[in-house]
């Protein structure tokens, strides 16, 4: 689209929408320096202990629950991203480049999770796991300490399931303009399938695969509903932890945590953008 003369009204409306998007973020950051522990009103900048205004940031790093939740969140996001990216890319290749029995059915099956409300999927998985674990526990007559329960494993499997369709969608879009002759040329020059895939196919689809992986990672980090129904002891993620706090008192530690979170994301994305523009 070409840039033509711009209406001041459009600029004003756009600025207002940006303001709406950023108001909560600014509030979050400002309140991470709050002197009040209950965090309802802003009662001046905290200045306590050796950390001074960064008191809540220091408290955060002493809080075992927060650190555990952060670790769980990252473990779940990384594992589910890697696995769903591999499986989803395979599916994208199959749907875009091959003909096989059940292709139409697979395409429909892949769109289904996108139009299914998350709670429906979460409830279904909960019903499945509780039935399967109940059955296995009584079948194997496991002692209470050895019984199978929900935990990191069930959360990771569920995240893989809801990420695959999104990865496939993104990678397929990238494969759309793929020139098959490039692969044929490599094969004519004596490369086998493996070398052709590594040297020709993969570099060409890499940006799509990376975009799919980024999407899967973001979805996993942010997920609340499916995690809520599939989590168990020892698998508390950050969203679940904060949700639990909301029923009691939220201290400014949570604000400090989200401020650090935003900064880390900005730095990571900034570095990757910088590398892209340099190329």
């Amino acid at each position, binding site marked *: 689209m070409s840039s033509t003369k711009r209406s001041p009204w459009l600029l004003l409306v756009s600025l207002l929408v940006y303001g709406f*998007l950023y108001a909560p973020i600014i*509030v979050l950051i400002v309140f991470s320096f709050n002197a009040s522990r209950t965090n309802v009103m802003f009662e001046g900048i905290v200045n306590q202990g050796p950390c001074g205004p960064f008191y809540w940031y220091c408290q955060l790093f002493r809080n075992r629950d927060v650190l555990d939740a952060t670790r769980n969140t990252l473990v779940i996001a990384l594992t589910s991203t890697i696995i769903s990216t591999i499986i989803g890319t395979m599916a994208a290749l199959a749907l875009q480049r091959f003909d096989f029995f059940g292709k139409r059915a697979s395409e429909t099956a892949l769109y289904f999770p996108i139009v299914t409300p998350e709670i429906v999927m979460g*409830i279904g998985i909960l019903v*499945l796991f509780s039935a399967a674990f109940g059955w296995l526990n009584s079948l194997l007559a496991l002692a209470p300490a050895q019984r199978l329960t929900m935990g990191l494993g069930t959360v990771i499997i569920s995240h893989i399931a809801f990420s695959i369709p999104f990865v496939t969608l993104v990678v397929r879009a990238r494969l759309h303009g793929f020139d098959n002759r490039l692969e044929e040329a490599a094969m004519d020059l004596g490369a086998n399938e493996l070398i052709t895939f590594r040297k020709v196919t993969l570099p060409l689809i890499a940006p799509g695969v990376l975009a799919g992986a980024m999407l899967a990672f973001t979805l996993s980090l942010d997920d*609340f509903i499916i995690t809520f129904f599939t989590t168990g002891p020892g698998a508390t993620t950050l969203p679940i932890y904060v949700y639990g706090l909301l029923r009691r008192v939220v201290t400014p530690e949570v604000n400090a945590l989200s401020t650090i979170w935003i900064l880390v994301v900005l730095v990571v994305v900034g570095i990757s953008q910088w590398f892209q523009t340099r190329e």
Partner: protein
Amino acid sequence: MIQRFRENRRLQGFLLILPTLFVMVVMLIIPLTLTVVTSFGQRDADGNVIYTFTLENYWRLIGFTEQGWDDLYLRILLRSLWLALQTTVIVIAMAYPLAYFIARAPEKRRNSLLFLVLIPLWTNFIIRIYAWVMILRGQGVLNSALGGVAGLLSIPFQPLDLYPSQGAVLIGMVYEFLPFMILPIYTSLEKIEPSLYEAAADLYANAFRTFWRVTAPLSMPGVVAGTILTFVPVIGTFVVSDILGGRQVILVGNLVQRQFLDARNPPFGSAASIILLLMTLGLTLYYTRRFGLGEEIAAG
């Protein structure tokens, strides 16, 4: 044998899709089937599921209980639907101008402007809603700011009672899903060929006519995609209503969650979940059929 496998592209394709099919069957089809089976069941006095075949749970949901007519659950379903529609319309009204603004910005600035839309998404879903609690509650940021302004102008000020309420839930929903509407609309606007605008101008179309006859129809696929990305999660949510609505705003998501975790009545919760699924699938199917046609007309 290896040679035959190399030539058999049907088998290769099937093997590539196999892991996905496996995951979809185990994590989607079997769970949904179990939910349907459970929804026809009953609950005994201890909260265990008895598997029978009764439609009682569904009758109860649409108002026919053993004690006579009661539209409690029907009203919950309609409230969820109404809130999801309101959210979607407001989100389109807010997202379209911004997407249009970004698509018309100089090319090298577009990525940064788009990036600004995404940053809020990288905080946490729950934390973003909590931020709205801080803004909207009685002694919160908004009331303090308004009180300050009123004080300066020496106008009497009564703090607004915004939280918890259905309005607060609506604000939270709009906020959560705005970026998911901006992105697809931007993508479809950005694809429009500049020559189309030149052609419209050559044919003496004014700005208004150009928008309605060129821009709007060509950006419909983005609006349709954004609507699905907004409507589906909003209609099934229970978190936003839980946090911003207090216990007053009960949506079908809250109903399902409470039946499973508090009331220990999985058969009834399953029936509500299935009704929610059917409602969502029906509406998205109708919507994409209806507006998919509009796309073809625009192309012609």
